[in-house]
């Protein structure tokens, strides 16, 4: 066994949720409650132009007419939307020019999270946009990216600096009418990342956003918008953590991706929001709408996600394959332990000719958790020669957990080929015995097997993330083996 795996296993025994600290930062927190005034306040605070305020208000008014969906395979008590504060930011929201000006507490927060905010960590080669509660704190490597014409900034800055671009694409993939949480997000979103890769540019480094919920009684509603022009390429990573609290906090984000002809967007998520304690107390409700559209021919969008956190994960990163020959991919590992619930999967909408999609979903349930895969593959009449392959496997660890698969296929074209496979099983006793026989303890063997099981997906992550994700898998399973 390599040292790396040794590390993972030693951490199994002594780690719990290690990102559960609270940072003592001076914060502006808006009073709880939601009304048109809340939205006007957020908009004014950010000095937003009139059109954006109007868009938010339209979204809010539409949201009021909607009812909360109930079809999902997760259970939670009703959310009181008036008991949430919709805006929290570190004080002195002045723009920062260098890292020295950053509040040392905030810097310490991100240091604890192991995020390379420091420029000297150049070797890591990752440009970071850090979002704390509602606002983007700092974006690194801006100049270096600007040389190539890449725009990587917080969305509130982008509204001022590139209003035309934001206006053109905001809500173009996920309109505010799309669903309940997307409407809520459109009304109250506070910040997020904006990425624009101009024609023919290959983004020279991985772009990354770290999301952190710090304040109590707040919800986080960020919005990410990534536009890749013709023949552009970008790889984008997001990571999420939150402090341990007894209350449930709502995280309702929207991510929109637009890939023009020949462009490629690779979007990776390592989601590690606080999952609640062993009895299911506290934790984040992660209700997110993620969708990408392959506008042009030969475009490609790839979602990779490792979901280990959140008390409830409920999201379906989707791809609309509009351009001919475009490709959509979805790779997912969703791990639930204790009382966690997950209902996640993807939607692949084939519209263009010869479009291809591939879905690989690996669910792992332990403790008393419930883990569902729900996915839709839709082949429209126009999508001649469309091709889909889906595989969703579930691994059950313990006799109190559940694993569920709900794949939907709607096929309207006879030249389409759609294949789906799913299996559910526990770790084979013969495999465990094989390991035991060679002197590998039960717990080590389980970690080894789980990592092997998820390898197909982990391999799709950028390298630094893959290591982190493997550790996360092992930590999240701690105490479930036996």
């Amino acid at each position, binding site marked *: 066994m390599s040292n790396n795996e040794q590390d993972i296993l030693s951490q199994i025994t002594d780690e719990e949720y290690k990102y559960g600290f609270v940072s003592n930062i001076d914060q502006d927190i808006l009073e709880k409650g939601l009304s048109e005034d809340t939205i006007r306040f957020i908009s004014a605070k950010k000095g937003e132009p009139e059109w954006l305020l109007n868009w938010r208000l339209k979204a809010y008014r539409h949201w009021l007419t909607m009812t909360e969906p109930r079809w999902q395979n997760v259970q939670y008590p009703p959310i009181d939307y008036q008991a949430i504060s919709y805006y929290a930011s570190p004080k002195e929201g002045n723009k920062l020019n260098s890292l020295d000006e950053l509040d040392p507490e905030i810097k310490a927060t991100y240091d604890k999270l192991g995020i390379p905010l420091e420029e000297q960590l150049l070797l890591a080669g990752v440009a970071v946009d850090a979002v704390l509660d509602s606002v983007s704190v700092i974006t690194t490597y801006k100049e270096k990216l600007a040389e190539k014409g890449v725009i990587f900034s917080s969305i509130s800055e982008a509204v001022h600096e590139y209003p035309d671009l934001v206006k053109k694409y905001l809500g173009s993939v996920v309109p505010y009418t799309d669903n309940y949480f997307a409407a809520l997000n459109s009304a109250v979103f506070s910040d997020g990342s904006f990425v624009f890769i101009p024609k023919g540019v290959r983004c020279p480094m991985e772009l990354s956003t770290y999301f952190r919920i710090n304040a109590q009684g707040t919800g986080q509603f960020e919005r990410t918008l990534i536009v890749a022009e013709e023949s552009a390429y970008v790889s984008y990573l997001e990571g999420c953590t939150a402090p341990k609290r007894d209350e449930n906090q709502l995280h309702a984000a929207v991510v929109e991706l637009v890939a023009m002809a020949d462009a490629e967007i690779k979007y990776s998520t390592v989601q590690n929001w606080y999952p609640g304690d062993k009895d299911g107390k506290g934790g984040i409700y992660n209700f997110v709408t993620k969708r990408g559209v392959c506008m042009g021919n030969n475009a490609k969008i790839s979602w990779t996600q490792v979901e280990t956190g959140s008390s409830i994960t409920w999201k379906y990163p989707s791809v609309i394959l509009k351009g001919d020959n475009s490709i959509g991919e979805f790779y997912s590992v969703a791990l639930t332990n204790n009382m966690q619930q997950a209902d996640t999967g993807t939607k692949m909408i084939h519209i263009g000719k010869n479009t291809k999609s591939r879905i690989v979903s690996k669910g792992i349930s332990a403790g008393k958790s419930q883990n569902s895969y729900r996915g839709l593959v839709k082949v429209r009449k126009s999508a001649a020669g469309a091709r889909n392959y889906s595989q969703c496997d579930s691994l059950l660890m313990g006799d109190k957990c559940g*694993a569920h698969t709900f794949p939907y296929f709607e*096929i309207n074209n*006879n030249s*389409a080929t759609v294949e*789906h*496979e799913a299996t*559910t099983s526990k770790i084979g006793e013969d495999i465990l015995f094989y390991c035991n026989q060679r002197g590998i303890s039960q717990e080590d063997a389980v970690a080894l097997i789980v990592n092997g099981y998820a390898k197909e997906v982990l391999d799709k992550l950028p390298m630094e993330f893959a290591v982190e994700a493997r550790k996360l898998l092992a930590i999240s399973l701690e105490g479930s083996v036996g």
Partner: protein
Amino acid sequence: MENVLEHTLADRLTAHLASLGEQPLAAQRQEAAAAFSALGLPDTTHEDWKYTNLTDVGRLDPLAGAPVIDLSTIELGPYRIAGLDAVELVFVNGRFAPSLSQEWHTGNQFAGSLQHALVQIPEPVLAHLGQYARVCEEGFTALNTLLAHDGFVVYGAKNERWDKTVVVYHLSTGTKEQCWTNTRNLVVAEAGCDVTIIEKYISLSPVFDNDVLEIAVGANASVQHYKLQTRYGDAWHNGTTRVQQERDSQYYNATISWSGGRVRNNLQAAHAGQHCETNFYGLYLLDHDNLIDNHTLVDHAMPNCYSNELYKGIVGADGKAVFNGKILVRPDAQKTNAYQSNANILLADTGTINAKPELEIFADDVKCSHGATTGQLNQDELFYLKARGIPEDKARTILLTAFAGQVVEQVRIPALRDDLLEQLMKELHHLQIEF
């Protein structure tokens, strides 16, 4: 608007119920009336009815029933399966046709109408009827319980082995005003009993059949059940089959649907004891504006059970096929082995396939898998045959026969298998011409 209509319907149903007076099923019907007024008929906002639009059915009046037919005009000959030693039961528009049937009643075996069974073998009938198809589950089941006049009953006492196959013909024919039939059926196989049933659905004119069949399979018993909708014309069918299996029992079902119609089959088997075996096979061929919707559920409530499911479909121009198969493994149903497979071929780009193979699993020591595919004929295979001088249309027929044949091969009665293969060839030829 719709609510008002349903409300008046519920009122009329209550009135209808009162007019029936005292009878053995009065309590069940009472319960059904209450359930229906709460449930109504499902629509497409209902997850289970997402792909099947019932607007046409909603316009029909269930209380109008179906006309009474002169039995002398009916000729069974063309529908018979050659070379089969059978007990034949015929139901026309949900009413028993004694002149066309041979009721069978020995000491320990009964095959006949529900009305007769209630008189001759009331005990097992009343013990099982209404126990598995619950009225609170769906409006259609409630309506059936409320309105069904008759149906078939097959009963085998302990350790009875049936030498004869029971063949049930459901003939239906409607008029514009009267086109709703309800048939309520029951099969009881007590411990160690072994029985085979073939149901044939034949529609002579547009009609809506709303049928419920409950099957109780006792310990160590074995029930083989074929449901054939192979001459179904222009009719609507909603069939609910609920199977309850005791320990070590076997239930085998083959549902074969072609030659028209808009068909919805709800097939569910639940395990009430350990070491049960359940096999579901299905084949559907359709084109034009036909719809075939198969919903299946295997409810693994007990440990050490096995289930296997294979459904295949060929969809031509303007046909719409729906497959929703679910494997449910309840907590503590350890050592479950459950497999499900669904394969579809789309012949034309105006056909539609909506598949939803589901797994819901609450126990860890299980082996469950499902697979679903949709595609066209394999071009390599076609080329291989053509390269050997086989013309395109013949090559296609060969490949389609092989594809559909996998299900027909699972038919365990040789005479029926031959009959189905012959019909299959005709049916494929028909689909090919359309293509």
